[in-house]
């Protein structure tokens, strides 16, 4: 037990702390504020306080807890809302009201609730770390698999069936005469990646229901993506769309230093939204971490690691997990603030020089793996992190450091957002290195995917070049063929890439529909070219009712889309071919 020697913002230095370890959790002062030791110097411990230090006095007690920052893992995680230190915010509302009091405690997993445990192994079975010993039906969408904690092996001496809380023992494992109790809950230090048997390459499409992602710049399961964008470009909406519709087993949303009202909106909407495949409430497969911008700064760092630790835990059950973090810039700013208080030598723009490596330790925990233990299974963690570059200038250090690590970039463009083109993902600057990783997946859904995608990207690229000319000579001066290309690229932009997050149907587009939509536009292009060749004018093509029909494709429900697009195609051929003959 030590005492406070100095307080300066979130930095607390405590004296008489011999015997502590780095990253140990301490309780500061009479209120017991949570802090984490980040350095030791003789008897002094340098502590970052995860709560507001207002009113602390020199000489107040600092208690070491002997444990390092760990996440509680077990049934009760799904559907929960946590702060950056994994305190349950709903419990806090019950205990302390609508405002967050300093030093208030709330455990992550409910202690009273009983879960129905069904064993999968029997007495006498040999088990080792990662083995699934039983299951708990946690929600309608997630079956929680109870695994042997890392570092434990032996023979099952006893195993129970029935209703247990997370702290009651459900199995006993014996090794060399020593017996260990297993409970539904286990703990894991958040800064340490959870082990796996083997790392695999990302593969298979992470279906998001967003056309520009799924079709144009796919994200693979186990991949990592960055979404940088200035304010108002729709970062938050894009991330919300991801966690709403991504076809994964579990999604984790880390709201790190962002807006409270938006967080409230997310939480509220998840109480109503349904999973497109099962019809069950989406909150049955979500975990939320809400560390809004007015909550303690230092806890932002913890929130990211708490989130990724939970993601790895579910990955180890053999699930595909998506974690989105909004926004990693706020986390980097927390690092900068701590670095400044510690009087470290600053790197670029005042950020500490270790920011890049700290970002990689987070992103590198994404990936597809072969999980430890039996039965054999694969799981994946896919990570998408928002970046908020100051002044929408991507040359700043957080964006640049992130781009060194991630393999997919969804660059949000201010000028697109100002035109209200949403999602404002720029097709000219975005990229995905997962095109090969998802090739097989797409091959089964849409064999022409690669060609169609390349054609569309080429048209958009040509448009960008033509735009330069239009600015000089005006649109009327272009030859007919180029006018048609501008019309088609506009259709690709407005009728395919633009997607409304708020439209009932358009918000989630199945990949097959996306493919048919784009092919319809390209088919129209081919027919229109024929028309031009046989002497029709561009006005005639532009005013064709087909153009309007194509613009409404988005609103046709996924189920009836194939049928109605077939009708559109035959109509298209008829009307365009007929009008070709008329002159």
């Amino acid at each position, binding site marked *: 037990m030590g005492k406070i*020697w*100095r*307080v*300066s913002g979130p930095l607390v230095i405590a004296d008489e702390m011999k015997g502590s370890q780095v990253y140990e959790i301490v309780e500061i002062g009479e209120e017991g504020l949570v802090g984490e030791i980040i350095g030791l110097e003789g008897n002094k411990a340098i502590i970052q306080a995860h709560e*507001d*230090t*207002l*009113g*602390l*006095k*020199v*000489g107040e007690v600092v208690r070491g807890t002997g444990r390092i920052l760990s996440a509680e893992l077990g049934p009760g995680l799904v559907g929960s*809302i946590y702060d950056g230190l994994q305190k349950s*915010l*709903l419990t*806090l*509302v019950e205990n302390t*009201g*609508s*405002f*967050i009091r300093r030093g208030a405690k709330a455990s992550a997993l409910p202690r009273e609730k009983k879960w129905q445990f069904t064993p999968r192994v029997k007495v006498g079975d040999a088990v080792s770390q990662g083995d699934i010993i039983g299951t708990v039906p946690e929600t309608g969408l997630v079956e929680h698999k109870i695994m042997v904690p890392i570092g434990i092996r032996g023979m099952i001496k006893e195993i129970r069936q029935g209703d247990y809380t997370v702290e009651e023992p459900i199995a006993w494992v014996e090794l060399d005469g020593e017996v260990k109790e297993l409970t539904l809950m286990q703990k894991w230090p958040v800064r340490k990646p959870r082990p796996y048997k083997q790392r695999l390459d990302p593969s298979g499409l992470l279906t998001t229901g967003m056309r520009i992602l799924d079709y144009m710049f796919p994200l693979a399961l186990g991949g990592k993506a960055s979404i940088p964008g*200035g*304010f*108002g470009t729709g970062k938050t909406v894009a991330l919300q769309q991801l966690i709403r519709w991504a076809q994964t087993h579990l999604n984790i949303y880390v*709201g790190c*230093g962002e807006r*409270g*009202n938006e*967080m*409230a*909106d997310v939480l*509220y909407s998840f109480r109503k939204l349904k999973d497109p495949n099962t019809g069950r409430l989406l909150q049955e497969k979500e975990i939320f971490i*809400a560390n*809004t*911008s*007015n*909550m303690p*700064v230092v806890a932002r760092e913890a929130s990211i690691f708490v989130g990724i630790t939970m993601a790895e835990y579910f990955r180890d059950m053999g699930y595909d997990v998506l974690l989105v973090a909004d926004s990693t810039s*706020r986390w980097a*700013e927390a690092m*900068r*603030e701590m*670095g400044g208080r510690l009087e470290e030598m*600053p790197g670029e*723009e*005042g950020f500490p020089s270790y920011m890049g490596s700290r970002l990689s330790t987070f992103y590198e925990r994404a990936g597809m793996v072969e999980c430890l233990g039996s039965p054999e299974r694969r799981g994946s963690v896919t990570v998408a992190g928002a970046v*908020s570059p*100051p*002044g929408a200038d991507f040359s700043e250090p957080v964006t640049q450091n992130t781009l060194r690590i991630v393999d997919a970039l969804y660059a949000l463009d201010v000028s697109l957002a100002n*035109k*209200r083109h949403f999602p404002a993902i720029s097709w000219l600057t975005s990229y995905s290195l997962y095109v090969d990783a998802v090739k097989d997946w797409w091959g089964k859904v849409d064999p022409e995917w690669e060609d169609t995608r390349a054609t569309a990207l080429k048209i958009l690229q040509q448009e960008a070049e033509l735009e330069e000319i239009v*600015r*000089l*000579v*005006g*649109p009327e*001066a272009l030859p007919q063929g180029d006018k048609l290309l501008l019309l088609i690229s506009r259709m690709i932009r407005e009728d395919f890439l633009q997607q409304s997050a*708020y439209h009932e149907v358009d918000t989630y587009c199945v990949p097959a529909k996306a493919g048919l939509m784009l092919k319809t536009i390209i088919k129209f292009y081919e027919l229109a070219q024929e028309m031009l060749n046989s002497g029709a004018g561009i006005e005639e093509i532009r*005013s064709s009712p087909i153009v*309007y029909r194509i613009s409404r494709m988005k609103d046709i429900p996924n189920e009836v889309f194939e049928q109605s697009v077939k009708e559109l195609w035959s109509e298209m051929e008829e009307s365009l071919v007929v009008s070709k003959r008329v002159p």
Partner: protein
Amino acid sequence: MDFPALYVKETRAISRAKGSLLIAESIPGIKFNEIVDVQLSNGEVKSGQAIDISEEATVIQVFGGVSEVDLIRSKIRCKGETLKLPVSIDILGRIFNGMGEPMDGGPAVIPEDYLDINGEPINPAARQPPAEFIETGISAIDGLNALVRGQKLPIFSGSGLPHNRIAAQIIRQATVKGKTEKFALVFGAIGVSYDDASFFMRDIERTGALERTVAFINTASDPVIERISTPRLALTAAEYLAWKRNMHVLVILTDMTNYCEALRELSSMREEIPSRRGYPGYMYTDLATMYERAGRIFGKEGSVTIMPILTMPDDDITHPIPDLTGYITEGQIVLSRTLERKGIYPPIDVFLSLSRMMKEGIGPGKTREDHNNAFMQSYAAYAEGCYLREISTIIGAEALGERDKIYLTNADEFERKFISQGEFEKRKVEDTLDIAWGLFSALPEEDLKLISEELIKRYLPKYRMFKT
């Protein structure tokens, strides 16, 4: 009055005085961020705050600077308190300075409670998503960037633009449709000129709104450090009225640029490592802890809506002040010098302005069923017109096609009829939408892609006239 006995600790051992900082020996029992009195040898008392405490030294930031402090006879006295605002319902109708002391000549407030001016963060799980439309009577806001209760929506302006007049118009006109509820205004003036502060106070007084207003005024000549406390005092008063007194509170803070300048000044005096353009790295968090005090809470009737005003240095929206603000607030109303030069009031830049909470606040039962579609269509048509305007400056309007010319004229009409309105004109949201429909009449009907046929048949003037 002075009660020396109440002062628990004091020290004379000041070793350094510079800028606004005093470094003294360690004061046992002093709390971090505690407010202290600094007594000068001539008897004058200044306030200060303990910003760094340790067993070796105490660093005090003195409000109003360290002028006339001497190292031998000056004393630091601790009161054991962090900065608190005395509150009661009687704060309504009163004017305070940047330390929360009355400056209207009236008596001190008899407090019901003392509230920490930093407030406590609202638990995100207790927040109710804002969804009630506030009618400001200004078309460019109501129609295109609707404000809702519990939102934080700043005005990004430039020097010389009429942001004060717009803010005053919003204060005069803002109502929630069909409701008469307890409404209060909290006005925080931060480092503004005396004229600006008195413009607002006169306007508030003239419209009879003074008795439901609390004002905190720190003018340009007042101590810089009080600019840090002024908005926090204003928000503390607002929270008291909203959460304890069930009122709907609108907070106007002007000019937040002065606040950020003050923050930079103090930060450099503390010798902190600067981030962009010398502003401290924690400016985002600092601003967020204030703006995030806006909101609604489940189970509570009141609400806090914040409308900060800031002037963008050199009209640059990427400057750290508007940039960080934009990352925190739920949208922004941006004023345009180009529109101002064209003589359009309010000169609201439709493209750069945005209200993130708009979609929750509009639609059937809230404004009108066609609001969202009419908004999108207006926006698209105006964007097209502005794009063509840009092209036509190079190639000449004559080189445009017929369809393009229609859009070009439409953009001018949109600015003249829709955006532009009188300073004392209060348009109902229905009137705003009808103006939009009037403008759609000039466009080819098949171009109204963003509106369903049903709504076109119901609202487009030519069908409406046919019906009546």
